[in-house]
């Protein structure tokens, strides 16, 4: 009925009916569309699957170190994240968005930040915070003002300090290297306590820590893959690393007895996983060039400030969240459009 009505209207608008005049064979309908009729072929799903591929080296290393529990945490975290998204879409009657892979990526990244011994309820709660509180209540993909996995991590670290005490959490593991958490050693005992860690060991994953954050080489390879594929805003990642390095260097130069070397800060804790997978999250970070550099550098600076002066062992979730909040302001720094008046 309604479609018939539509037809009448359209004939009133187009009294000249070229389609009928043509009189060539059966009537065919063409797709009427606005330009452009080409597209570079990118999709959100492709981007997310590439992020997952890039994360694989670091994740596989974590699983090889910590065994089945680590695999369990990663798999359960991804599953939970996707289920939370399905449940949310169902209850708010939105079309299902789980197919775009962004919930899976959030779950994977969240899992990478967990210790292998994380209990099941922590994962359920954490993915709820990441997916529902971090993203969906703001409107879903593209609307989150904060980085979802880091928001979840920050809330859990504040709420359940004991679980994120990696020394305590991983005390039953003996992987053939010192099973103390480097950043905790630094925080509580000063640089003298971390003399036993050399940079190469840290970089090659011979350190205690979260499942997906210890294998520096794997994270760098994954990051370079994303960078070359154009799926990562390299400006943010590299300026973040530069921010960490320069700030740590200044502290180190100021008082080497009290503050660790910049390389230690680069290769310990969450620094690399954040630099390559989290700090450049799409909707919570800037899109213009200069703001990206400022954003990354400030985030790196805040990270080291919190590590060296603050109360927390690792400053990462808090520094990024702080910069996420400043993002709309920072992203106002932009070049003048060509032709703009005034």
């Amino acid at each position, binding site marked *: 009925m309604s479609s018939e009505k539509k037809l009448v209207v359209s004939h009133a608008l*187009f009294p000249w009916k070229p*389609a009928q005049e043509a009189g060539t064979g059966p009537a*065919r*309908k063409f797709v009427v569309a606005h330009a452009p009729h080409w*597209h*570079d072929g990118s999709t*959100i799903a492709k981007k997310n699957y590439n992020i997952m591929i890039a994360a694989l080296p670091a994740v596989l290393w974590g699983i090889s170190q910590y065994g089945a529990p680590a695999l369990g945490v990663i798999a359960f975290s991804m599953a939970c994240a996707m289920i939370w998204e399905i449940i949310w879409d169902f209850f708010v009657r939105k079309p299902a968005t789980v197919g775009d892979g962004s919930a899976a990526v959030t779950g994977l990244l969240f899992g990478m930040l967990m210790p292998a011994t994380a209990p099941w309820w922590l994962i359920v709660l954490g993915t709820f915070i990441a997916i529902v509180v971090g993203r969906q209540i703001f409107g879903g993909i593209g609307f989150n003002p904060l980085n979802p996995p880091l928001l979840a991590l920050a809330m859990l670290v504040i709420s359940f300090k004991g679980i994120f005490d990696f020394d305590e959490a991983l005390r039953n593991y003996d992987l053939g290297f010192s099973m103390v958490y480097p950043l905790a050693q630094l925080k509580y005992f000063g640089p003298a306590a971390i003399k036993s860690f050399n940079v190469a060991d840290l970089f090659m994953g011979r350190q205690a820590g979260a499942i997906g954050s210890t294998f520096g080489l794997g994270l760098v390879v994954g990051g370079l893959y994303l960078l070359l594929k154009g799926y990562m805003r390299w400006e943010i990642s590299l300026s973040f690393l530069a921010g960490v390095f320069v700030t740590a260097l200044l502290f180190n130069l100021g008082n080497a007895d009290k503050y660790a070397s910049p390389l230690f800060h680069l290769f310990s804790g969450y620094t690399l996983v954040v630099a390559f997978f989290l700090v450049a999250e799409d909707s919570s970070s800037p899109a*213009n060039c200069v703001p990206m550099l400022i954003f990354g550098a400030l985030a790196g600076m805040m990270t080291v400030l919190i590590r060296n002066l603050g109360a927390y062992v690792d400053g990462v979730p808090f520094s990024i969240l702080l910069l996420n909040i400043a993002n709309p302001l920072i992203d106002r720094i932009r070049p003048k459009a*060509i032709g703009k008046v005034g």
Partner: protein
Amino acid sequence: MIKRSFFGLAKPRLQYNVVPDAVQDLPVPSKVVLLLKESRNGGGTGELKVGNAVKTGQRLAASPQSEEYVISSVTGTISALSPYMGTFAKKYTAITIDASAQDDWDDGFKKDQTLDTLLKFLQYAPGDPCLKALADPGKNIRTIIINGMDEDLLLTVNKYVVQNEGADIKAGVDALRKMANVELIFITVPESLVQQAAATGADVKTLSATYPRGLPHLIMKDVLGEVVMAGDTVEDAGVVFMSAEAAAAVGAAFKTGHLRVTKVVTVVGKDGRSTNVRVRIGTPINDVLQACNISLHERDRLILGGPMRGAATYSEALPVEPGTNGIVIQDAATSPEVTDYPCINCGECVRICPVRIPVNMLVRFLEARLYEDARALYDLDCCIECGLCSYVCISRIPIFQYIRLGKYELSLMETAEAANE
């Protein structure tokens, strides 16, 4: 279609096709349809009646005073007159003429080289020249740029004309120098056509073959070093752009005494193979496609113009107009569909925009229909309509369409305000 490369960090470089295809002449069609724009003082067909005999080159207008006219491209009789509405609700009268195979030339066109002749007979010339600005005392036109580059990808109409009809362009340049009071006439061509362009007598400027450097606003910036201010047209900045085909049509008219009634069109099939055809203006697209052995299927796209800026239309009975430079057929399977996914703020559009518009913010305002804010805060009027933002959008938002819609809605608001004053 050019896809994102494996290493996506290297942004796609869309290159214009700089090697013109050969031209195939098509016979006079059995019927042509000419779309007569509605004059400012209302529609109506006035002196045009069904059954009127018309000659090739005859000026057809609703009344002798009417500004708008078409030039009959065939000899025959008017068989139908009907209203027609184009994109953005532009109103036309569709004049259908049954053509005879023999041309009987109308002698209304006189070769006296004045601006009046230009306006009275050459506005409907192939290439759709924008001549009104030349006679507009409000615009201080100092420069004419003859664009030998086609504005869209794949198309090679103007490049063909520069390569093969240099003598006509030269006659056109000479005539324009006499008629229009301009200081400079440039011709802009890709590197490969510099030699042919040099023979036309206009100042030759080369253009990069990378899209969108062939668009008027960017040519202004690259060639003249002048920036067209937001909301202004190139004519406001004192420049008239004319396609090489239009310049050749002007030259040919004054050389031969006959108005040019044929148009070169690039036809691109589903396999991506392109050919040029020369047809009478008003030839139904169907005739062109049949001559090129291209068949259309359900859900195909029939694009008038090029892939970046053309419009996919609904009927193959629509005619070739003076500004129709391309007919591109695209299969449903290879045509990207837009989605209603939100912007994820990835920033690809911001980085590819040739005029540095913050597209990520602009699209949010356009989606919310806040057109005035979009113009005031996020540079809607700076857009030069190249379509690259939609081309790279990972959420496949129809950004380009939102931009066109926003500009159109703002123009409606301005018209309404002017009417209320």
